[in-house]
Every structure is written in C-alpha cells, then in structure tokens.
C-alpha cells in the first residue's frame, strides 16, 4: 500500500497548543514521524535582553501557562547565582511549597487534558475541579490565578497570609483522597488501560540518548530527578522518594505523574512544618556583575535550565532557556513508529506538551 504523510496540527485536538506533528502512515501503521514546532515563537530570549532583571520575572512566568511558578523560580535561581545573593531560609521554604503546589496543579491539568484526549469526560471534570483547590490557594498567596509573578530575586514577593499553612495541609489531605479516587477511576477503566498499556514504549537507552528528562525519563526506568541528584533550594531537607516505573509505556508515564503528586503532597506538609520565621526577602543589587549564572530546576515536564550572561549593567547580555519539552518532543519518531494512528493521541498526550516554553 502507498505510504502517505498526514499533518496532525497545527489545529488539531491532539495538539495542546500550536504545533504540527507530521506522521507517515502505511495503512494504519506509523512508519515515520516528524514534529514541527515554532508556531508560537515569541522571541522571549531576545525580549529579555532589553529589560532589567526584575522586569524579566513576569516574562519568565509566561513561558509555560501550566507551571509558571517553576519558570520564574528557575529564573530567580539563575540570577541569584549570577549576583551571589543569599536567599533567606523562610523564602526557600515558601518557594519549595509553592512550586510543589504548582507541580500538582500542572500534573492535574495534564491529567485532565489526557483524560479528555482519551475520551474520559469524567476524568476531565474531576481533575479540573480539584486543580481549582490549588489554584485558589496560590491565588490567595500571590494575587493571580495563572501568572503568579511571586518569586523575586532574593526571596519572594510577600509573606504567607494568615492560616495559609492550615489551608494548604487541608488541601493536601483532600488531594490524597482524590488521588485514590482517580486511581480507581482511570486504572479501573478497561478503555483507559487498553489505550495505555504497552503503547508508546520508549526504551531506557533511547530515553537517555535522546535527552528526555522528567516524568518521561523516569517512566523508562531511569532514577534521575534533579531534586535528589542535584538538589537546589531546601530539597535536601525534605523526605521524599523519586517516582520511577520500569514499564516504559504510556501507563508508566501516567503512573509516575500520579506518584509524583503523592510525593508533592508530602513535601508541602513537610515544608509547612519546618518553615522558620523571619524575613522573606532581601534587596538584590540592581546591576549584575560580569559573569555567568546557571539555574537548573526540576520542572513538572522535565529539566529546565536557564543560563544568563551579565555584563555589569542592569540588563542581561544573554539569557538562554533550555526547555524540557523541546528535547522530549524530538523523541517522537522513536516512540511513535510501529503503532497505529489512533495511538498518536495517547502517546503524544502522555508527554505533556507545553508549547509556550517549547517555542519560547
């Protein structure tokens, strides 16, 4: 039978955002695939060169709408590395707590989109409803629902509101109940399991060679998490496990994210218990010294790296952003080849695409 190319995207229910996946099919079977990205290129790296260091924080928020807190945190870590700013301990605990809340909210949004892709409307509504709990918490803390603009160079914007710790612990308890419900809902569903198990196998060697990071890498059986392997902030003082799974398929990627949400709930509770009192912000210098700074964080989607070059003025000379999804999507041909066209939705949905950070 003749082979042909099919464009899935840029406008397609499978693509969450603007990107194009070209697949070459032989009948129903995929023989080749080619991701095309760049439809949402906003030139953020160039934009940052004309702005002062604090002004970039709201821009870094807009890199990824799903997890804006981790991106502004990554940016602040990078600039603190460049300027040599010591962050107060309370600010570090607040940051860890907020990015773990952001991780739960991001994974829940992924789960909602994934359930919607696979035809589980119930999964979509339940997860989006419970994501609201964490979005409301973060809104009460930061003043905005999606682009928080909360971390600052040298701390966080303001202190926790009263009773925030109580509300956060209550939210994690609620979340743990809900996670059990999701496990019954998804893993109990025959359709969900049929579309996930043994679909989109990415072997351990391929995952390492292609530079895949984050939950997709851990689902291939590699125990690699920056929070443990290259700890930043106060993660060394937190007691948590790295979620890994040895199945390498779509189910493993789903399972790793569910386990990460359990661990995030534990980290939030520990951070609130251990949080010291004191200042939450120091005044950062206006001008950065000549030199470079690097910040690496474990984003909900993988390893986010920022690299900044300072030239002695109040604006960066260069800001490089390493997006985890930009690398992960390059593994698409390896994952897709050999499966049916109908599996594309499950496989690419399982990678948790976010186009904002991908195209920058």
């Amino acid at each position, binding site marked *: 039978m003749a082979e042909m190319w099919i464009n899935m995207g840029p406008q397609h229910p499978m693509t969450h955002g603007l990107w194009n996946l070209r697949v070459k099919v032989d009948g129903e079977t995929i023989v080749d695939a080619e991701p095309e990205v760049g439809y949402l290129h906003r030139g953020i790296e160039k934009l940052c060169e004309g702005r002062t260091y604090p002004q970039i924080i709201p821009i870094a928020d807009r890199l990824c709408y799903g997890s804006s807190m981790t991106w502004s945190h990554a940016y602040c870590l990078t600039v603190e590395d460049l300027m040599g700013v010591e962050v107060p301990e309370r600010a570090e605990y607040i940051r860890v707590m907020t990015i773990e809340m952001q991780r739960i909210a991001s994974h829940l949004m992924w789960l909602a989109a994934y359930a919607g892709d696979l035809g589980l409307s119930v999964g979509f509504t339940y997860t989006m409803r419970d994501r609201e709990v964490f979005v409301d918490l973060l809104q009460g803390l930061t003043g905005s629902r999606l682009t928080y603009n909360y971390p600052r160079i040298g701390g966080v914007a303001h202190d926790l509101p009263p009773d925030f710790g109580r509300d956060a612990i209550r939210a994690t308890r609620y979340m743990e109940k809900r996670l059990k419900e999701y496990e019954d809902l998804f893993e109990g569903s025959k359709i969900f399991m049929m579309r996930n198990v043994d679909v989109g196998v990415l072997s351990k060697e391929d995952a390492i060679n292609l530079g895949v990071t984050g939950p997709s890498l851990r689902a291939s059986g590699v125990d690699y998490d920056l929070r443990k392997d290259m700890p930043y902030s106060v993660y060394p003082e937190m007691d948590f496990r790295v979620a*890994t799974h040895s*199945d390498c398929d779509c189910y493993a990627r789903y399972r790793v994210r569910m386990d990460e949400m359990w661990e995030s709930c534990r980290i939030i509770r520990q951070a609130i218990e251990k949080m010291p009192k004191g200042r939450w912000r120091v005044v950062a210098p206006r001008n950065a010294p000549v030199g470079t700074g690097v910040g690496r964080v474990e984003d909900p989607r993988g390893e986010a790296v920022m690299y900044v070059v300072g030239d002695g003025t109040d604006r960066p000379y260069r800001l490089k952003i390493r997006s985890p999804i930009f690398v992960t999507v390059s593994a698409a041909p390896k994952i897709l080849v050999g499966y049916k066209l109908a599996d594309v939705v499950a496989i690419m949905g399982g990678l948790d695409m976010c186009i904002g950070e991908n195209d920058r």
Partner: protein
Amino acid sequence: MTERRKRRAAGVVLQPMKRTGRQLVRTLITGKPNTVLYPYQKLDLPQVYRGKHVLDFNKCIGCGNCVTICPNDCMWLEKVEDPELGKVERPGVDIGRCLFCGFCAEVCPTVALHMTTDYELADNDRQRLRLGSADIRDDSFGATFMEERQKRLLPVLDLSKCTGCEKCAGECPEMCIAMMPIDRTGRKKPEINLAKCTSHGKCAEACPEDALTMVEVYESYFDMPEPRLVLEKCTGCGACARKCPSEAIYMLEMPGTEKTLKSGKKGKPKKRAVFVFEKCVGCGRCYQACKFDAIEMPGVKK
C-alpha cells in the same frame, strides 16, 4: 515503586461506576454545585488580587518609579491641575497593555498606588482602556485595608536647618552617623549609615534646630540607583532641586566663588546641589533635568 495493580474483571467495570455514583450521591445530598453562575455570583477574591489600579493623589509624589519599572511601558506621567494640590504630575495606565504584574504597586515609595479586586475591565473601545490619572483616582482606597509593606523609622535630614553642630553624631548609640564635609561649601552634614541604624531616635532628640526628624519610611524592595554629582560641571542652576519629587536636593552656596562686579562689590556666590539620600527615591528625575551632565546615575535612561 507502585507496580500495576491486579484487577478482576468485575473490578474493571464496577470501580469507575462506583466512584462516579458516589460523586452523584454526594452532589445530590449536599446540593452544592462545583461551579458559580458567573454574572450573578462571583468568586471571593483575596485582598492581594491584582486587578485595576487605583491611585491616592495625596500620597503620590509623582516620582515616576512606576513608569520606569513597568515591563510593558504601559504607564506614563501626565500633568494634572488639581484645585488642592496645584500643578502636579500623576501616572496614568493603559490597561489594554498592562500585564498585571503588580510591580508598579510594589515599587511605589509612598504606597500611593494599589491594585483592586476589580477584574471586569473589558471594553468595546480601545481608547477607553487608556485610563488617565483622573480615572484611577481614589484617595480613600488605601484606608480600606492594612498595608503589609515593611516600614522603618528613620531620621530624615532637613539640610536648610542643619548647622553642622555634630550633636547627633555624638548621641547615636550605634555610631552610625558620621559628619562629612560638603565639598567647597565649608559646611558639614551628618551622613547616616542606614544599614546600621536601629531607629533609636536619639539623634532627632539631640538636634537643637529640629533639622533631624524621625519619619516612617516604607522600605524599598528594589535596589534604586543613587545620583552622584560632578562638581566641576555643576552650574548651580537648581533645575534638579525643582524637579525632585521628594525634596531631597538642597542648593548650598559655595563661599569664595563670588565674582567681583564692575562696581567693586562682590556678587552672589555660586551654588551647588547637595543630595540627602534618606529622602531619595531613586527616580532619576534630577539626572534627566540636568542640562550640563553634572549628575551621574548609572542605569537610568535620559
């Protein structure tokens, strides 16, 4: 880690149905929906929510720090004639371009600019999104909630009253006041090391002329640039002192610079600018006002 659970055929079908059924029963019993009927019901918004801006005209000094820090260039200063305040400069905001980051409210040195919980800002006309300073004016908003910015009691110098008697430096328990001579004027002025100051207030009590007063100052979260004078270029015109929104610049006479007039009498001595950094908000207006490049401020646009 958690491996795949073993399930029997009955569990595969019945588990999800049980879960959705329980949710249905729970909703029927409590009768509480998960959504709100938006135009009629609204969500409770926290006090820190970043919506439309409001400006307290009496607190605002028109320094333009909000205009400088805005990442999207959506603010500007406009000249306003107010019956009480006279001719003043106050900021306006284009909420069509605003990204609601809240930096303008955070950088405001007098906490005059706030952000309300008003989020219904859509309009048919783009011009109506450009809110002038009169549109965002609300002088009473600041009293409606507790301000959480850190305040600090600091001695603030009125240089026109200071005689340089050094009594404040002798009284300071932290030894944080040093009497520094001001170049070419033959006078001395107390330089206060703000990092060491513990707000004791003894310097203000000791001052015989009431030149030092203890004032509550909002701490700046940002590192603001400080002006520096190039004395050789300063002509003493006083343009910077007139532009300064916080009255931190004093023009002092330099004795010995009088020109001898034709009639044999001596004219007035030249003047120079002196900065009092306790009052300075780092806005850079003096730098922009100086026509002779006598003020240096690294990192500020002219």
